[in-house]
């Protein structure tokens, strides 16, 4: 199975994923990016995001493959745009 890396883009910096995860393909990688985004937003909300003024909806998850080529970018704001 191919390995995908889930980096987190916060404004100007990128938090590198040093390990990656083995997943079936790009679709599974997309699903993982959505789940990770939802979880990250939930944690920030629970940790007092609303009061903190921290800007999280400008963040995104950037998924790359083993050759460091971009597979997809999933903006945090997208989970709110659904429905």
């Amino acid at each position: 199975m191919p390995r995908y890396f889930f980096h987190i883009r916060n404004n100007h910096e990128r938090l590198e994923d040093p390990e990656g995860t083995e997943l079936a393909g790009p679709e599974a990688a997309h699903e993982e990016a959505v789940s990770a985004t939802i979880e990250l937003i939930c944690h920030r909300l629970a940790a007092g995001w609303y009061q903190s003024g921290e800007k999280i909806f400008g963040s995104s998850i950037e998924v790359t493959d083993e050759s460091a080529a971009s597979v997809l970018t999933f903006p945090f704001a997208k989970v709110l745009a659904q429905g």
Partner: protein
Amino acid sequence: MTHRLLKLWAQAAERDVSVLLPGKGQAMSHLPNQPEFRNQLLAKLSLEDLDLLRPHLKPVQLDVRHVLETANEPIQQVYFADSGFASIVAKDADRETEVGMIGREGVTGLPVLLGDEQSPNDTFIQLAGSGHLLPVDAMRSAMEKSGTLRATLLRYVHAMAIQMANTALANSKFNVDARLGRWLLMAHDRVDGDQVELTHEFLAVMLGVRRAGVTQAIQRLEERKLIRAARGRLTIRNRRGLEKAANGSYGVPEAEYTRLMSGRS
């Protein structure tokens, strides 16, 4: 069982001298001049109780991911760690989370100590190290023979129940940063030195979050200069700061362990 005490204990064991640790004088008084075992539970036992176990204890070195117990299968051996630690992991088909951590302060195989032979949880080595394996039959017959051994081990099981209760509290009421802080403090208590080797993948299981959540939490603790992260390795830079980051989620089980285990066995 504070961090400082553990460090003192480890140093004393290395120097092969016996020191009287605060709160541990009574347990130490059972021992000859040099501690025979670095495992704190073994070190607490009376010579008579130790004699029941000693012939069956087998020194081993265990690698990371070494499986000590498999869910719903009879437990074969219990493990007294000298260094490194094991995790008890609860799981279903596609989720798993750590519910208990056992290092040199204790012994694996809680179901055996309670008269059962298996559990729905897995137990495996989380951080490589050395210690002693003991066949469950030897543990059972020693517990049948000695009321003091039974009492000590049951008090330890209670200490573990308290740790597990506090893990439930941490996982339901504390944010990921605090949970990571707590976990690192617990790991730090059980290793020699300030480095903990483990992957984000493992840490995600330990904290019950996705890897991306671990990546962010590590970065925030790094920004606060509490830890240093390199590939597969975390270094504790500021323990007191980590205690602050843990925000009260660390400390109760550790204090309870000291209360339960510092008495005469």
